[in-house]
């Protein structure tokens, strides 16, 4: 009897506790919808409107909305037409800037014949931030550099959205003087006891292209907002923008951050905020209320449309710093560097059945062998006529992952 009760109980409790199981969600729930992303600013430039379509949950990527007719009208009856420059990206034909006390409206006609328009939106108050600075700090028990902004304009701007782009210099830890390449490759599939074998000539030429010093840029992928309404005179002091741990390789050399500030309206602030909140992981304590996030653009039909047409006053600032400014030690290079000495004359099969040095060497030099070496290894040194020291590609060539063009704004 006892046993039976045990069984019943364990059964029920397992059910109670292991009750989560995959569920065949209805797949026909997908709804077509246009996604509109546009913030026009008080900067005189070709303004941008980005159009895409919602994709299915199981899909990935972006589905750009092509061939749409896009224009903005203002309350002074000016019309600004937009042209599609890349799929889904529409730039204004001419440069223009948003001006205070003028109402702007976005119009879109898509290729399927639907029309959309936004509510009238006014440019938000200008409130350029004064200070952008970095301090050495410990955040979440980790030492690093914290980038802050201060905005003490004492005006009516209350809602802010920030974007930042960081750019940093990369110097490869190995100085490569010669490029290495192969010629006259002969492929012999049966030689070497069934393992393919190659014979080839090795050519080295002095490096001419800059592959040692590069610059990389990251645009942050996060909605970063703050609101100053609870603060004294709507001031923002020490709003954290970016924290970089002291080991982060991006500060191994000179680092620069450009912070863009958009002054938002109540509606645009809340639209971005809600999107952001919905993206956050739900916790057990409080489930976030999910639902459709209503923007300020509507269709002429009852169709759903996601997005916001924001007219925002923008300001930006850039700073530069080096780890030495904060008495930090130099972080490690972002990639692990391993040298490998390979002898062309060794072609016996390796212990694990892999090709001999000769095979490895050609694979590393060409970088055409995705399963082993997808990138071209760099020549560190030639020991003798047939022995070469090769280095992990990214340790000798920064152009693989970044650009060797020095940005126009860069100040060393």
């Amino acid at each position: 009897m006892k046993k039976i009760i045990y069984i019943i109980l364990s059964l029920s409790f397992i059910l109670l506790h292991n009750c989560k199981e995959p569920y065949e969600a209805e797949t026909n729930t997908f709804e077509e919808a246009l996604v509109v992303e546009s913030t026009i600013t008080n900067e005189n430039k070709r303004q941008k409107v980005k159009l895409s379509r919602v994709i299915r949950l199981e899909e990935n990527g972006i589905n750009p909305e092509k061939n749409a007719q896009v224009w903005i009208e203002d309350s002074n009856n000016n019309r600004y037409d937009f042209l599609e420059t890349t799929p889904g990206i529409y730039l204004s034909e001419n440069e223009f800037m948003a001006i205070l006390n003028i109402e702007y409206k976005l119009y879109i006609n898509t290729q399927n014949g639907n029309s959309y328009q936004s509510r009238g939106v006014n440019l938000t108050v200008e409130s350029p931030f004064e200070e952008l600075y970095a301090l050495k700090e410990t955040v979440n028990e980790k030492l690093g550099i914290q980038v802050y902004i201060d905005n003490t304009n004492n005006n009516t701007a209350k809602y802010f959205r920030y974007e930042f782009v960081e750019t940093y210099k990369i110097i490869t830890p190995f100085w490569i003087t010669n490029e290495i390449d192969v010629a006259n490759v002969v492929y012999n599939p049966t030689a070497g006891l069934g393992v393919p074998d190659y014979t080839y000539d090795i050519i080295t030429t002095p490096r001419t292209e800059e592959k040692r010093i590069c610059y990389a840029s990251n645009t942050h992928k996060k909605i970063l907002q703050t609101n100053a309404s609870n603060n004294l005179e709507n001031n923002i002091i020490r709003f954290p923008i970016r924290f970089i741990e002291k080991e982060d390789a991006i500060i191994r050399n000179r680092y620069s951050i450009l912070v863009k500030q958009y002054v938002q309206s109540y509606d645009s602030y809340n639209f971005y905020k809600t999107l952001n909140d919905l993206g956050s992981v739900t916790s057990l304590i409080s489930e976030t209320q999910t639902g459709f996030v209503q923007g300020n653009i509507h269709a002429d039909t009852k169709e759903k449309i996601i997005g916001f047409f924001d007219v925002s006053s923008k300001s930006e600032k850039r700073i530069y710093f080096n780890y030495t400014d904060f008495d930090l030690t130099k972080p490690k290079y972002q990639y692990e560097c391993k040298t490998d000495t390979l002898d062309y004359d060794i072609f016996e099969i390796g212990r694990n059945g892999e090709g001999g040095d000769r095979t490895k060497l050609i694979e590393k030099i060409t970088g055409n062998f995705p399963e082993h070496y997808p990138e071209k290894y760099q020549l560190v040194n030639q020991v003798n006529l047939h022995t070469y020291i090769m280095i992990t590609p990214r340790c000798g060539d920064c152009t693989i992952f970044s650009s060797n063009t020095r940005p126009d704004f860069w100040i060393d």
Partner: protein
Amino acid sequence: MLIKQIKAILKYLFLILLFGISQTIVAQEKTKITIQFKENTIKEVLLKIEEKTNFYFYFNEGWFDDTTITKSYVEVEIETLLKAIFKDKLLNYYILDKKIILTKNNFIRDDLPDNFFDIESNKNETILSPILTKEFVNSQNIKDSNLIRIGKEDSNLSSSNKIISGYISKSETNTHLEGVKVYIKDTNIKTKTNKKGFYKLHVPKGIYTIVTEKFGLQNNRKRIIIYGNGTLNFNVQEKAIALDEVSISSTKNDNIKKAAIGVTRINIKEIKIVPAIFGERDILKIATTMPGIKTAGEASMGFNVRGGKSDQNLIKLDNAVIYNPSHFFGVFSAINPYSTGKVSIFKGSVPAEFGGRLSSVIDISTKELNTKKFSGQGNVGPITANLVLEVPLKKDKTTILAGFRTTYSDWILKRIDNESVKNSQASFFDGILRFYSKINKKNTLKATVYYSKDKFSISSDSIYKYTNQLASIAWYHKINKKNKLELQLTNSTYEFNIVNDGNLYKNFDLNFSINESQLKLKIDYLLNKKHKFNYGISSKLYHIKPGEIIPLGNESIIESKLIDREKALESAVFIEDRIKINEKLQLNVGFRYSYYAFLGKITQNKYQEGLPFGDENIIETVAYKNNEVVKTYGSPEVRASASYSFTPSFSVKGGYNNSTQFIHRLSSNTTASPIDTWKLSNLNIKPQKSYQFSLGIFKNLKEDAYELSLEGYYKKMKNIIDFKTGATLILNDNIEVEILNGEGKAYGLEFLLRKTIGKLNGWIGYSYSKSLLKLDSEFLTNRVNDGNYFPSNYDKPHDLSMVANYKLTKRYSFSFNFFYQTGRPVTYPIGKFEFGGIQHVLYSDRNKFRIPDYYRFDIGINIEGNHKIKKLAHSFWNISVYNVLGRNNPYSVFFVNNKGEIKAYQTSIFSVPIPTITYNFKF
């Protein structure tokens, strides 16, 4: 043979006894007494005589009235004195040695009539029999108090017929009634009242039943003993007046006549038959099977009544509010089934004495206590054990009930060989103490103390606890025949606590508590048969500690935070009149005025008018002093209903009800959870309001064996609290910023067929209902689904429940349940899109989709223990299988975003049949 012998012995004993008595009387001395009385009552007179002589009186104080005697007697014999004293009184006396026995009406004879033992032999002669104990013995059904004594017996047996005369009046109006037939049952003696309402009958001595009869009036029957000439007046009521105010279920076809509409009553007896999960009989669960009441499936807390939110139900246990009447996330209700008497659910007409919640009042009361003898009841099930004892402290006056229920699930969980189960905890207990004391005829005292505690952990590092504490005391006082007073003092507390103790850096202790104390005075005033009033006043003080989070340990990075405490006073005056216009039409008219004051000490934000609550619109933050009134709300409420009976078994009823609610549960989840916090209306959160119209037809069939009803309702709600998309609720200082005030609309049709008697009994309930919500604003963020009405989280249009029990023999009975509900609405992710360089999930309009429908079938068998009289305890076995079909009913559907891949999951609570055996006993 045996009987004859006994009769013989009796006769012998009786004769000896009487003979002995006669002897002593003869031997008695005749003493002379001198005594004087001055405004002395009869009692004082008798005591004086006792003082002066060596006689002892034996009497019942209740026989004496307030008349006094002022007179002097000199040298009189005791007999003369007594004769003088009792001359005009309905009292006889009998002197036995030094004892004087007083009797009312009866004259004690010291001889037996000749025919006493052989009445049958003298059948044909009209012999006047004196009225003696023998007849009392024969008339078994009649208690002495029910008998009306007429006249005073004298020792003269000769005068044959006695004259009974009297006056018949109508009790509602006190006017005399003409032409009422008055007769003595089983005889030919009859008459009618004259124009002035008088009657006169000639009746021989004896015990009879006298009956009055007239069309349209209630028949009046009285058992009478005729000793001599006398009068008997009747106060006759109009037919079919239901006097019973306490329990409707005891009166037949009340469901037809009473004006109240949308009232469901469940008697504890009905639930014994219903198969239950883990064998736990659960009166609240049964109540929710009635049409119009919906739960979010099994193991869910709270329920939705007529399209209202789950926080809109006022759940009371012996007058005190119980905030979370459930254990184990709602698998069991926290009300001990053995201590419970009945549950009344008011979902339509809410009596004016109740208020403060929009949807319903669920009034649970502890059973009437057994004041006669020690008794108990209990059960042993697979998960819980329960014992309830009733201990009379003073027979017929004072009783105490103690109930305790606990689970040994923790002990079992530890023994289960499964890692995830082993580390979880789930335990609860609840205890109740009920005290009943009938102080005297006019005063009764009832008190209850209740405590329940739940503790569970889902993951190994967090422990959730919650407790309910209630205390209530009520004093019932009968002021006079027409006025009754009831004074209640109650206090309720609900608390929960979450301790997270697994992640070094995120350890915390989070607390919440709500406490309320209420004082209520209610007076019932029965003006006459037409008007029955009740009125009163109540006042309730709330204290809420909305939350405090404390980091645990030095390593924790959790910041400690304390949200301002809240305080408010909710008061009300109410009056209700139950009016009976005539035989067919009854009305209930009630009025309630609620007055609410939100009190300091607190800081409140003031927002710019015309703009939505948002941090950017705060004009100023005001700090209020302790007990300073921050904001008041007053609200008149009407509670009216009427019924019109076309026939005694068919009626139509209608009602209108509005109410106001000042306290709100903050829950963005579909189902209520034990860790939802409560919030008081304040400067920025307005009280919720509802207005309900209901209409129903009621029909009883086959002499009330079947009750059939069809009710419809339409309800409008205002200021319903909902939340913005993306709202977070816990430990939020400015919760009003996240709140959306919506308009609710609910309507439905409810059908119920109930059979309460016979071998097959049970009910079938079906309802079709809609519950809609509208969140509209000129500001985009405060608008949901384009500002159109959309289905609320608990909109489940079709709801069918069948509960049936078939009693095969006295020992075996079978029962089954079947439930079906439309799946509840859910918001689905319907696609993905990129915005600001990040991928987001696109959600459908709120509650656009539904989870699959819910259905469940349970069966049960009750086997009663054998009915040996001498058995110590009466017992029965209950074998039941819950969810026989093994339906995997989804409890909730949720979505997890795992690196951009959205996966849907469902949770279900009991996806396989669950058999249970329970042993129940009673002694």
